[in-house]
């Protein structure tokens, strides 16, 4: 019961409390400065914006838990978004019918987009897990190929066709019981991921593989499938996020998810800075944290090109604060997935 190494509930609650306090302070500051901040409309917008970076970060969490890096996901997302836009334009079903307010061909288009995204992840996963190729180089290479092939659909130009009529924008606009669909999707996927990673044997094997691969192998964990699955999930969720961005923009853009790299890593590592390891809840709060910051500063008329500055500075401050020895008893631990750990793993 008092096992210090195990993830006890009280530790998690303490970390959540730290996060809630941090975010509450920021929210109070913003609501004092800007009247419009604490309105239902703005909070809805905040969460809707958050859902995209949060889904990307959720996928990345799986890879980071394993101690790997993925540098391809944001380029894979571009490919997936273009695939969906292209299929949406082509209207692949002969006799399309309406499901609610959307055409029937939209659903296979979206699913196909996520599937091709997963396929790129599968390639990275097999290369890194099965062939033991270096993760950083392989994923950059795979990402390059994915991003290059994304241009093939339209030679780099926007795809407008069918966007306003097919109902693909409903992915972003639809409401489920007054809650926007992206938010429902995000919360649902986070809940599933939490149950998988923190409350199942499958998830414990993930953490075992990440913290000590050799020990995991000798304990009978087949690490290769876990690595492949992690890369597939990462690419798949990014593809979903990229498709949601596309549907929000209302146009098939080859650079749909090209800016996802920084927010995703920031969300995961802000989560790690509080939880001391990559967790689903940590990533969620990390994404919430960055989104609140961005939303607040945007309301205060901050130019769009400063958003990276905001994310970067919050990331640095969060990690530095977590490194300061508050209790002076706790020994400084390197962040999981840091370079030094990877260097030891062979």
């Amino acid at each position, binding site marked *: 019961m008092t096992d210090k190494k195990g993830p006890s509930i009280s530790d998690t609650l303490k970390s959540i409390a730290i996060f809630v306090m941090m975010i509450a302070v920021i929210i109070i500051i913003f609501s004092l400065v800007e009247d419009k901040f604490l309105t239902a409309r703005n909070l809805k917008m905040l969460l809707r914006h958050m859902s995209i970076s949060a889904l990307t970060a959720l996928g990345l969490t799986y890879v980071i838990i394993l101690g790997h*890096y993925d540098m391809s996901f944001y380029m894979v997302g571009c490919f997936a978004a273009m695939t969906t836009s292209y299929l949406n334009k082509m209207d692949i079903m002969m006799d399309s019918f309406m499901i609610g307010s959307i055409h029937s061909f939209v659903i296979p288009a979206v699913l196909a987009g996520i599937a091709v995204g997963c396929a790129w992840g599968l390639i990275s996963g097999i*290369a890194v897990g099965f*062939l*033991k*190729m*270096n*993760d*950083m*180089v*392989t994923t*950059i*290479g*795979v*990402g*390059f*190929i*994915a*991003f*290059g*092939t*994304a*241009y*093939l659909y339209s*030679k*780099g130009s926007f795809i407008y066709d069918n966007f306003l009529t097919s109902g693909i924008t409903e992915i972003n606009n639809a409401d489920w019981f007054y809650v926007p669909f992206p938010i429902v999707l995000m919360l649902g996927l986070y809940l599933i991921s939490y149950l998988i990673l923190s409350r199942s044997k499958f998830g414990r094997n993930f953490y075992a593989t990440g913290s000590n691969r050799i020990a995991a192998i000798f304990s009978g964990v087949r690490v290769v499938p876990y690595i492949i699955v992690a890369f597939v999930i990462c690419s798949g969720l990014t593809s979903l996020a990229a498709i949601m961005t596309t549907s929000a923009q209302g146009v098939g853009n080859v650079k749909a998810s*090209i800016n996802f*790299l*920084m927010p995703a*890593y*920031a969300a995961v*590592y802000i989560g790690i800075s509080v939880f001391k390891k990559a967790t689903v809840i940590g990533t969620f709060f990390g994404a919430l944290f960055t989104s609140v910051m961005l939303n607040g500063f945007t309301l205060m008329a901050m*130019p*769009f*090109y*400063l*958003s*990276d*500055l905001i*994310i*970067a*500075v919050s*990331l*640095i401050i969060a*990690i*530095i604060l977590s*490194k300061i020895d508050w209790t002076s008893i706790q020994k*400084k631990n*390197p*962040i999981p*997935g*840091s*370079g*030094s750990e*990877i*260097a*030891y*793993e*062979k």
Partner: protein
Amino acid sequence: MKNDTITTNGFRLGNLFQAQYGLIWVALLMVAVFAVSSDVFRTAGNLLEILRQSGILAIMVIGLTWIVATGEIDVSFADIAAFTGIVTAVLLKAGFSWGITFIVAALLGTVFGVISGFLVVYFKFPALIATLAVSGIAKSLASLMGKGAVIHITKAEGLVYQLVYGNVFGMPLLFIVTLSIYLICRYLQDRTTAGQHLYALGDNRQATQEAGIKEGKILMSLFILSALLASIGGILLTATVSSGNPKIGASYFLDGLTVVFLGAMIIKAGQPNVIGTLIGVIILSTLGNGLTLLGEYFFVGNIVKGLLLVFGVVVVTFTRYKKRIGGQYSIA
């Protein structure tokens, strides 16, 4: 590490058919294809232009090469270059001379290296995260200075003009300078203790700590060096294109990482080294130039670059398996 290619200087013709030279053969094949299919490509003027174009990227990525050799990563170099490019443009527009501009911009760019080094060495940030954050800051500040727009300047004059456009004995001066820098770096890397420490750090971090090698000092100086060289690259870039562009980092970011990883597959089979990087830069410039001359879309270049990278990793990984060194192949 029993890999004899690290220290031996002996060069045998038979070695050329080993896997670590595979990429050179691919490159030669590529040049041959371009030369056959394009009249313009095979002119001497175009080939020299390729060398000139390689100069800037080559200077930018020396520091990155060594950082990757120690097993860390630096993704901020491209945005630091964009930042110094903008600073250069702003200062020149304000009427400062090239000399002062050069020094101020290089110093400001180096500050980012100090920040990354500090975060990695003292706060134990993973290098990817630290440099990602720093690159975000550099990118934003670059945009802030020009309100997100490109800043145009008048064409460079005097010494700087000679440096970026001039020729010496028919060779581009920029390439000669780059080549000399690379030869010096080759000496530092392979003939000095510090150079050996780099690879020791990349090979076995624990062993280097126990051997008393000052890991922090090396990493700190590498991040500063990388930022300084990236800054110089950014300044030269602004001089070449007569404008400062805050978004130029995106295109150099992946190219820079690609050349370092491609270079790692040449000569030292799996370890980044400066000569490999230089060859990588020339391969990439040739590729870009040849594809443009053939009238291909630029994204074909991205696909080919990706394929080259994956091909390179596959070759290195499987040679390592054959040598029974096994395990994960050792860069980054």
